[in-house]
């Protein structure tokens, strides 16, 4: 046995027919108001169907959607890998790399130093040779003695050369 509400819902949905329909409409107290209400319910149903129903994508829209999805995915992967790269870059100045950088700096410094020293060497070569500032012999003991001096740059030897010193017998060679 259906209740009034069930019969009312079925009437609104147009599911009553025949004797059951006639019997239900006869039981309505105000059939005109009920018809208006039925028309409103139908309009509402159509409106809800239009606005809330799942919209079916066309082929073109589906393809476009797929492309957008792919682009978004690739963007996400790219930003992720660049994040990893920046994390790697931040660890560049590790101790081994600092050591290498230090060694390279030292090498550059040594090369520059050697270059500067090499540039200076020719002008200062004489300072590496022994220099005789002055020399004298006793004029009483060796009146005819003379002294001369020379530097042999090839052998880096400086010689003070005397002539005319008093000759001595071989006994003076004793230790």
């Amino acid at each position, binding site marked *: 046995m259906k209740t009034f509400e069930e019969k009312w819902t079925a009437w609104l949905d147009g599911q009553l027919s025949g004797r059951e329909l006639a019997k239900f409409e006869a039981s309505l107290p105000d059939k005109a108001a009920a018809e208006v209400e039925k028309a409103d319910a139908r309009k509402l149903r159509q409106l809800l169907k239009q606005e809330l129903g799942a919209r079916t994508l066309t082929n073109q829209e589906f393809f476009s959607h797929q492309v957008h999805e792919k682009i978004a995915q690739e963007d996400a992967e790219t930003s992720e890998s660049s994040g990893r790269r920046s994390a790697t870059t931040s660890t560049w100045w590790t*101790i081994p790399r600092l*050591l290498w950088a*230090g*060694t390279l700096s*030292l090498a550059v410094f*040594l090369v520059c*130093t*050697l270059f500067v*020293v090499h540039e200076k060497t020719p002008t200062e070569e004489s*300072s*590496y*040779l*022994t*220099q*005789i*500032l*002055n*020399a*004298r*012999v*006793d004029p009483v*003991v*060796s009146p005819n003695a003379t*002294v001369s001096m020379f*530097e*042999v740059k090839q*052998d*880096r*030897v*400086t*010689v*003070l*050369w*005397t002539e005319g*010193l*008093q*000759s*001595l*017998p*071989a*006994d*003076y*060679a*004793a*230790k």
Partner: protein
Amino acid sequence: MGGVSAYLIPVFALILSATPGLRGAETVWSGLVIAENVAQPQPIPPELTRIEGPLKKFFGYNQFQVIGRSQKTLKTGQEDWLATSKFFGLHVDARGESEAGYVLNLKLYKEKELLLETDAKLSKRSPLVIKGPQIGSGQLLLVLVVE
């Protein structure tokens, strides 16, 4: 840690080897040498080995014998010392140190008689040779070398 040490040691060795002119105490060898020409020359004394060529070339002798010597380590550059043989004495008076070497006053004595006096700036890299008097058939040479 071992890897770092193995890396740092050669680097520091390189730096130290490349650092020029860290001067410490140095020794001056001074000697009285008789140069002669003989039939069978004796080997040259080790102190003279580095100047054997120039000695033979300049003075024309084939044997060099040390008759007196002295080795002095200079710390202040103001030291003095004496190298002597039986009849000769070489007095060396260091009068300061410079970038190039040591300033020395040299006096050669025959017994108590001053034969020769000279002032010289002795370089570490350059020996000094002084030709002295003729002795018999040979020649007295004075040699100073920074070792």
